[in-house]
């Protein structure tokens, strides 16, 4: 609860027992009704967010289209798409999930979870992310390599140029 709210609500400053006779359900209802009278959101605002989300989806789809100028440098596209995705996620969380209008408890729940998520990913890097730096012969024998893709592409080229059929008639 923000400070200003706490001052407006005198009950919050007088220790734990402040609203005599109210059951948990009554208090829940009171909170929900209070929320119901909040004037955040509004249909126009939601529609504006919706339009922004559609626009951003089109933007990330742009990297797939032939108009995208950095097709030879995929990293540019990846960074761009992640930026677009984070913006979309932020819009959904702030407006649709009403986090913009929530009190400070939102940080207690979201920041530790987000940190945990980031550490979890980082901790996977040494064992999983770098697993191909040092591999056993057994694994190297069976795993796909870039050369396999090239070999398949070469086979496809040979097929489309008719060399394979020639090979058959020989």
């Amino acid at each position, binding site marked *: 609860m923000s400070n200003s709210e706490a001052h407006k609500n005198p009950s919050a400053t007088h220790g734990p027992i402040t609203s005599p006779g109210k059951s948990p359900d009554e208090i829940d209802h009171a909170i929900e*009704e209070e929320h119901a009278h909040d004037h955040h959101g509004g249909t126009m605002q939601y529609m504006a967010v*919706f339009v922004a989300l559609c626009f951003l989806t089109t933007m990330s789809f742009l990297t797939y289209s032939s108009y995208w100028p950095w097709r030879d440098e995929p990293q540019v596209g990846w960074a761009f798409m992640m930026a677009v995705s984070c913006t979309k996620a932020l819009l959904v969380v702030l407006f649709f999930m009403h986090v913009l209008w929530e009190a400070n408890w939102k940080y207690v729940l979201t920041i530790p979870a987000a940190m945990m998520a980031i550490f979890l*990913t980082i901790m996977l890097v040494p064992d999983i992310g770098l697993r191909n730096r040092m591999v056993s012969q057994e694994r190297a024998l069976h795993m796909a390599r870039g050369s396999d893709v090239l070999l398949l592409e070469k086979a496809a080229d040979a097929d489309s140029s008719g060399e394979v059929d020639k090979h058959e008639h020989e």
Partner: protein
Amino acid sequence: MNATAASIGHDSHDHHGPVLQYQPGLPLSRGKLIMWLFLSTEIMFFAALLGSYVVLRFGAAVWPKPHHVHLSEPIGAFNTFVLICSSVTVVLALEAAKANKRSLAKTWMLVTLVLGSLFLGVKAYEYSSKFDHGIYPWAPRGRIYERPDLYYGSAVRARLSDPVILEKMKELDGQEESELSDAEIIGRRRLKQVRDMVNNPDQQAFDLAVVADQIMPLPAEGADSHGHGGGLNDTFAWLQLPAVIPGGNMWASTYFFLTGFHAIHVIVGLIVFGILLLYQLGPQTAGMIENAGLYWHFVDLVWIFLFPLLYLF
């Protein structure tokens, strides 16, 4: 808190005993608090899945391109649009319920349910296009090999010497050209060539790449999700020969794991909306709609990251 309440009850010499009261520690209802706690565990759950995917993907020596594994970017973008629309309809349902417009709230809720089902339908269509090409999330039925090597060659040989397949091939060989379509005539010639190549003891490494290309070529960019370059597996659906997609097995594991868990969440959301539709959606149920909406927005949020990571990277 109970101890304090009890002691104060004593001090006031209340003859009816202590009156225990409830004071929320946070300015939100219990339902919403529990939903947010649940969502914070969900953040960690999906972040772990997505994080593992990113680490596996960028640590892999080879990762298939989306079109190599029959993923269609336009279909993914369409599904993103469907989920965004459903997120909007949930907030509109909530607003309508708060304003006591019950039938409007119900309509928006119904639209959400339809959009969620549409998302699942599209997902099912996408899954079927993977299954058609022998890409399964589990090993015994998966027909994907990592590279066109000797192991692959022997797997093709084993399949071709299956009695059922031998019988079918004999039948095919016995048919007149007039009975077959053009694709089948070419397919029959190529199948013969593949049989010769896998059985040839002097085969070159390149021969097996040609075999793999004849059986299921890697689709070109821009092909539709059921698209293929006219491989033998497509011409003769009964053949079901092993195919080569470099990096395809790890891709299949992560793809089905991520989208599968997301789809389970969508299904749970749809069940919740189905239950909500049984209620009168007015100000009394606004709290329930809000909590269901929070969950649904989270499901949308996960897809917002899944779409570019799976379809566009």
